[in-house]
């Protein structure tokens, strides 16, 4: 039953994203930026998906520290890995966009730097997990580190409001930006598609964490014999 739901979600995500590719291809180029502006339809939803993943991971890590239940730890690592992939896609698309609009692939402004630091922190979280053998110690240290890593997320989000950056100011959830309603709808649908894809990826990754726990338990059994 669980697998059927996952397949259904995966197919729904693919249908939504395929429909959006068709709609985005038919849109005219933006007046000032031309065709490259359309990259916003992936760049922004990928960032929002990564933020949702980071927030979920934070909640799961806090829950683990409160309850010491390993299912929360497994959930935190699964969702963090998926969020890292989406943040990576966001950074790469942003860099390609910048190469056309700014004439440079990268600049050390607050938004870009804090987003890169965020990626590195979550990559560090995954590396930390590989470095610790003992499961309880690994989960506890990783949960504490995860809470620390999340401190960077509000900085990434609000940096374009708090500082003057090379990165453009806020377009969504802001009185300063403007975006046509029909374009906003395509962007929101794309976000829903990516979110569904993220949920499916997290569920598959979570199943692998359960396999890993089964392996740990079989190893303990083998040692005891």
């Amino acid at each position, binding site marked *: 039953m669980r697998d059927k739901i996952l397949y259904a979600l995966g197919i729904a995500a693919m249908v939504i994203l395929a429909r959006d590719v068709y709609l985005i291809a038919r849109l005219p180029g933006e007046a000032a*930026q031309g065709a490259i502006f359309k990259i916003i339809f992936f760049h922004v939803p990928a960032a929002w998906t990564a933020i949702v993943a980071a927030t979920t991971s934070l909640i799961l890590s806090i829950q683990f520290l409160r309850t010491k239940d390993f299912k929360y730890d497994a959930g935190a690592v699964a969702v963090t890995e998926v969020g890292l992939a989406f943040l990576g*896609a966001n950074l790469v698309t942003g860099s390609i966009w910048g*190469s056309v609009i700014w004439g440079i692939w990268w600049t050390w402004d607050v938004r870009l730097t804090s987003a890169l630091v965020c990626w590195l922190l979550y990559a560090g979280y995954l590396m930390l997990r590989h470095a610790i053998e003992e499961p309880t110690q690994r989960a506890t240290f990783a949960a504490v580190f995860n809470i620390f890593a999340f401190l960077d997320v509000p900085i990434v989000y609000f940096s374009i409001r708090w500082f003057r950056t090379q990165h453009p100011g806020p377009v969504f959830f802001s009185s300063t930006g403007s975006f046509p309603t029909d374009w906003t709808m395509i962007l929101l649908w794309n976000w829903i598609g990516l979110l569904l894809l993220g949920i499916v990826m997290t569920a598959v990754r979570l199943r692998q964490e359960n396999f890993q726990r089964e392996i740990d338990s079989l190893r303990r059994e083998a040692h005891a014999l």
Partner: protein
Amino acid sequence: MNLLAHTLLLAQASPDDVVLELARLQRNFDRLSWGFLAAWVILALFVLMMVGREGRLKRQIASLKAMLEERQKK
């Protein structure tokens, strides 16, 4: 009005300007294609990585179970 403005604008452009503008538009479109491709490649690599890991984990479970069964028989 829009047509007149465009005609006047084009009348001032040299053939070199038109070539440069076409090249800019093409580069713009190329980078967009590369951007979308790169994003999907990252996600596809992640999925492939997960598929590979799942296979490895299943093989480990099978071999550990076989080893345990063998030890219990002894």
